[in-house]
């Protein structure tokens, strides 16, 4: 009987240990984007930290290109980006207010442009904002600058977030692609577009 009891105890202990052998912890992810050698620790959910990284990168690329192409001097006024649409095609809840705050703070840090975020949910509000912006004397200028006529231009911008997932036995590899497309406010023609992919390794 004694042997039986020890056997049962040992078997049950082994079974319970084998079925679950880890403690709970708040999950984290690693930034394993190719070319990024720091492998920063991130929140497992796509959120503020990730958006900040991507927004800063993309907006810097877009502004660098635009300044290089137009040779604009920002002493005439800071260009303005009006974000009209944030298209979240991922499966993560991302608060619009959070995105707005992050984009605004990225613009403040950069200093070469300002940002206005329109509320795409309310069409009337967006129309009113657009009318106000379109006829604003300081910004009544196309983003295609004419030589010697440089007022501060303004752009329309759309942000799209997409997600792709692959996995192995231990990790999920999540690719978050952020695309920002700039449009000329007068002609509504796409001027430029930039994207960035953030690769996260999330423990399953």
């Amino acid at each position, binding site marked *: *009987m*004694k042997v*039986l*009891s020890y056997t*049962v*105890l040992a078997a*049950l202990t082994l*079974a*319970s*240990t084998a*079925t*679950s*052998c*880890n*403690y*709970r*912890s*708040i*999950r984290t992810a690693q930034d394993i984007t190719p070319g990024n050698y720091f492998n920063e620790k991130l929140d*497992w*959910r796509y959120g503020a930290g990730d958006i900040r990284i991507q927004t800063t990168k993309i907006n810097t690329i877009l502004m660098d290109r635009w300044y290089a192409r137009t040779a604009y001097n920002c002493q005439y006024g800071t260009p303005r980006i009006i974000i009209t649409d*944030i*298209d*979240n*095609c*991922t*499966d*993560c*809840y*991302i*608060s*619009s207010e959070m995105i707005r705050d992050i984009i605004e703070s990225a613009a403040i840090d950069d200093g070469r442009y300002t940002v206005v975020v329109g509320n795409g*949910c*309310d069409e009337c509000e967006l129309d009113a904002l657009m009318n106000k912006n379109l006829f604003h004397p300081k910004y009544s200028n196309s983003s295609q600058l004419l030589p010697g006529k440089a007022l501060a231009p303004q752009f329309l911008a759309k942000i799209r977030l997409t997600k792709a997932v692959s996995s192995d036995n231990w990790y999920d590899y999540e690719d978050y692609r952020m695309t920002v497309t700039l449009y000329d406010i007068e002609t509504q023609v796409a001027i430029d577009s930039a994207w960035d992919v953030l690769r996260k390794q999330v423990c399953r």
Partner: protein
Amino acid sequence: MTSRSLRNITLILLSLTTACSSAHRQQEVISTYQQGYLAPADELLSEQIAHEMPQNAYWKSKNAVTLLLDRATIRFTEGDTSHAIQDYDLALQALDYYGQDSTIDTAGQLLFEDGCGAYCGSNLEQILARVYFALTLLHQGDENNACALLRQAEELQQRFQQSIQPYLKDHFCNDNALAKYLLALLLEYQDDTSNAAILYQQVQELNGILPVDLNLCTEAEKHATLVIICHNGNVPFKISDTCPASIASALALEMILASQDIRPAYSSFTGIPVPALCQQWPSCPLPTTISLDGVCTPLSPILDVAAAAYNELEYKKPLIVARGVARFLLRRTAVAFAEGQDPCLGALVDFGIFIANASTKADTRSWRTLPSSIDLIRYRLAPGLHNIGIAVTGYGNNRYEEQCCIVLKAHDLCVINIFNIHPHVTINLIPTRFLKGE
């Protein structure tokens, strides 16, 4: 032993001692909620949350999932959508956190009872948490994020479906018609009609009452869409029952052991506790009719939450019973071991184990503020003013009626939620941006 292990053991012992008071408090909250006193129910629950998980530290309470989901639903019913969103978001984080396996929890469940482990929500609850979160966002007009959450729910459904044993697939289905329908609706709203058509087709196969042709139509951008969702009744709650077969099996075991000259243990005859679902008559769904511009139509059930909860419990019962059997064997072995040392000690241990077995309960935690059934109707309307009448027929002469006017523009999506919490308590939630005069 690490400090984390010590903390977990302390939590198990604490959860054992506080399980009773937690269940009692939850019952108090649910009674208050079902009487229609939403603000006091919210307050009671907030007090409990502040006590069990100060500063929203969900990792401190093993009941975090149910507490947060209950409060979020109460707040959503109240119309306090911004706080409901915070709670649903936190509840999803808690679901992810407690979805991870824990050795200490498993050992605690094996040695003590199922309820001393953390509650990580049933499959149905995990999907509905996302659906309700999406409905709250839709009420605020945030279709983009609502779509993201419904995408998550769809992915989760597919993952659950893959995890079901192939031979059980015909008997047990995790697919949630409501989640699929809402995702299809939002995809259609975003002009992704091909994916919407696939999902509508799946809903039709699951439900049989919402044909694809009715939903997808040409020139959708010229029309407005009105969806009325009725959260009808209360989901059955869990009680701790005893598996009758377990008593018979224990009897057979003791007879076999007696044939080997081993004295029977009286503690074996208490049986193995298993959860069972129970529903009171006032919690049943009530017939609800919508009149739109004078034309009356009854709502069609899209998701029978009670039946889905029952099916899932039946699917999970073998695992619960297996854990109960392992616990029983451990305890019976302890009695036999003590008996082998000294017959008096054996009798004493048998008595102690008898009390332990009799007081061991099944895990009865669940998301109690869910409805028993979710009914839905969809209209495609011309832009302009529309009169909506809501009529709920209660028991006896009790009847709830309300009229309202909404103004819709082309390509608008208006989702109205009706909560039939109890025969005398009906609350409707209409987004204020569509109300006439707003």
